[in-house]
């Protein structure tokens, strides 16, 4: 069961700042709701976990992330991840191409193209939800990412103080996700599509 997503998000920060954050794999993982890097194996290999809660039940995925390519000139990188849930009944793989494009001195765009594939129970029972879930997760990720970016200092203030970084979400709350999906779906039915 494969899902392909291609999205672009505006970010209120200079391209260099966004690119710097993008290369910090631990920070990036921290922006993914429910995800955490637990071990740095070497420069390009990491181990991590993703925890999903659905009411009283929770699912924990363990996996590896590999930074496959880094192109500093293009401000692009490629990440590959694979993981399995702790009961061994679901597997997931992800291939992500992420790029930062400058728009102007104070803003840029984060472009991502990813292919996510799930196997096992997650595919059998969750397959139908995947597209919606993936989009929601990505929206949360970008929101977290944007909050982590150092704010553009006021030209007048000039003291370079960074905006406070809110603590990253430790868990992926399934019910909140489902609610967000329902809300979005209703919006689509009755309103214009959001980018």
């Amino acid at each position, binding site marked *: *069961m*494969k899902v392909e997503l291609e999205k672009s998000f505006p970010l209120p920060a200079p391209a260099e700042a966004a690119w710097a954050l993008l290369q910090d794999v631990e920070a990036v993982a921290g922006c993914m709701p429910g995800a955490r890097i637990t071990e740095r194996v070497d420069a390009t290999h990491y181990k991590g976990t993703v925890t999903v809660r659905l009411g009283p039940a929770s699912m924990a995925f363990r996996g590896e992330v590999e930074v496959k390519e880094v192109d500093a000139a293009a401000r692009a990188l490629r990440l590959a991840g*694979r993981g*399995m849930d*702790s*009961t*061994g*009944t*679901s*597997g997931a*793989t992800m291939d992500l191409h992420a790029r930062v494009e400058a728009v102007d001195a104070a803003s840029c765009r984060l472009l991502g193209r990813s292919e996510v*594939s*799930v*196997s*096992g*129970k997650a*595919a*059998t029972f969750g*397959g139908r939800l995947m597209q919606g879930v993936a989009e929601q997760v990505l929206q949360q990720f970008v929101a977290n990412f944007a909050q982590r970016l150092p704010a553009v200092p006021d030209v007048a203030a000039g003291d370079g103080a960074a905006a406070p970084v809110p603590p990253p979400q430790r868990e992926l709350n399934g019910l909140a996700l489902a609610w967000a999906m329902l809300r979005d779906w209703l919006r689509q039915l009755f309103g214009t599509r959001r980018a």
Partner: protein
Amino acid sequence: MGDMSELQAREDQLQGMGVSLLRKEDARFIRGQGSYVDDIKLPGMLFGALVRSPYAHARIKGIDKSKALACPGVVAVLTADDLKPVKLHWMPTLGGDVQAVLADQKVCFQLQEVAMVLASDRYAAADGAALVEVDYEELPAIVDPKKSMAADAPVIREDIAEKKDVGHGPRTHPNHIFTWEAGNQAAADAAFAGAAVTVREEILNPRVHPCPLETCGCVASFSKATGNLTVYLTSQAPHIVRTVLAMLSGIPESKIRVVGGDIGGGFGNKVPVYPGYVVAIVASIVTGVPVKWIESRIDNISTTGFARDYHGIGELAADADGRIKGLRFTALADHGAFNSHVSATKFPAGLFSICTGSYAIPNAYCRVDAVYTNKAPGGVAYRCSLRVTEAVYLIERMIDVLAQKLGIDKAEIRRRNFVQKEQFPYTTSLGWTLDSGDYVPALEKVLKAVDYEGLRREQAEKRAKGELMGIGIATFTEIVGAGPTKACDILGIGLFDSCEIRVHPTGGVIARLGTMSQGQGHATTYAQIIATELGLPASDIVVEEGDTDKAPYGAGTWGSRSTPVAGAAAAKAARKIKDKARQIAAHLLEVGEGDLEWEVDRFTVKGNPGQAKTMKELCMAAHTGNLPEGMEQGLNAVSYYDPPNLTYPFGAYVCVVDVDRFTGEVKVRRFYALDDCGTRINPMIIEGQIHGGLTEAFAVALGQQIPFDENGNHLGNSLMDYFLPTAVETPRWETDHTVTPSPHHPLGAKGVAESPHVGGIPCISNAVIDAFAHLGVTHMDMPHSAWRVWQQCHALGIDRH
């Protein structure tokens, strides 16, 4: 000689053949006191839970049991490595292939068995199973059988990659299993070349699953003290399993006991030997305590014997009047990752060559190419004889296609092609000798009962108004009762069956047979056969099956073989006893055997009716000292029956459907089923079987499928998705019959329980397609779910005002 009413009274008392005798089995079931495998509890029993692969195709890099072993209640964790020392990590299948018991280095289908956790109760076992960590390296999966034999296809079965043959002839590709053909290809091709009209369709018989209400399971108990292995098992063929276990385990067959107790439905799903059974047995041997393994519903649908998955091409050649001159049917068979389809050595595609059906087709050729894919292994014969549903579906669909092409009425075209009564016994151009049949009166009776002409008129009126109404016909011949040992075997064991009868001094009888009821009512129907044969009341006749320690050897119950084979054995054994009783009677009455006549329940002297010996009296007499010179005491006999032929029950079914062109919903308005199973033993039980078989046909035709995504993930393997009809949508069935006894069967009986499934599927499918026939639709693949039928409506532009 008594008068008619007295004779009738004596016959009524026997409650023998032909009576709708209420079932002896019911007493325990209506009280909830059946003894199914999961009801069994033995002291010290452990519970086994399987760890299964989430991937359809993957290498196993490592298995870490440590967390599982540390889980409270967990006693052991078994993997392939633990089975290797006893060489049980692979096992032979009933299809001549081998299957992994626990995955050894790679998995080949999603939810394949990888490890078994043994624990003190089922909750601890489930906890333990969730803690086993398996490191997989995912491999690309083959899900489309048409891609199995591509040059660059991944090799699924590395274990047999070098083997040129897996039991059924040469292989041309590592993912190829066998190619089997029958008939005369040259003659068929010539018929097509010279024909006035030919038709061709690609016809899918999708992968479905028998889904009995009780899943598979076992309790295995090995005693270190005695060296005896006892296995309580959901098996439709306990003796075959015992023999296979002896071959596998090295334990002498005389020290293995397989017990089939009450089984909650089989429908073919409980014929194969599943890895869970083997691991539970090894676990019991290793731990020295009983081990219970019961699978979940999802595991059952996902990993146990599926059915069908035949991708067929049907071709018929005919003259301008619709008389079929040639037939070419080929099929690509998807067997999943291991071929575990019950296969006689000579018939790896089962009895597919019955596909000439009820018709006299002079030139025919059929071929089946079987391949591996990354799906569950199989298949099994889901409420049918081996591959007969596939065969009958093809011919009954294609004759409708031919009728539509020529504009000939679908009942009329069948009349024109039937094997006529005077042609029996009729040997088909694919080699089967149909022993008896009388197709025309059956069809006429059904058409009259439903007012066929009236229905066609109504259909024309509805079509003029843009409404969709369909009339489906199926006139099928089934081939059941496997079978003559010359042709029919499993792993070399002939498909005979047996009955052993012991008669007690006070007239009670115990009969044990080699078949295995899963709800068919054997305890009642076999008793009725023996009651009529022996002249003793059915209420005094106890029937037992399933305990291999007690029952004589048989091949079990599947493919409607119980009545044709074991029922014949029961008659034969009873007749041996009757012959001996006749000798005793003659001796006691001091007459010659030729002077005696049999009358319902006693031997009377010809011309001297007052002189008689009842069977009851002879039961006692056989245990006394007053017997003919040289005769041993006792009134017992055993018969091992090797049938001279299979049997050919047939039927004529009509189905009327109304299709909602806006939603695609199909409603079965009427279904009239006429079955001819030869001599009818218990009409009530027959009718119940017809209802059940038709309901399963309804399920297959209108909703069942096992879909996969491109990675081999199951997409509908629980009852959330898999269609099991409820009482609300199940139609009311009308049943009828004719009687054309089988000339070679001792009772003239043919077997019936699977005919309604085999005939029901094409009948309902034909009805749905007939609803669209006037719009040029020649075929639609099953299942005819509302979504899929709507897509056809949408394509035709008729789903809007």
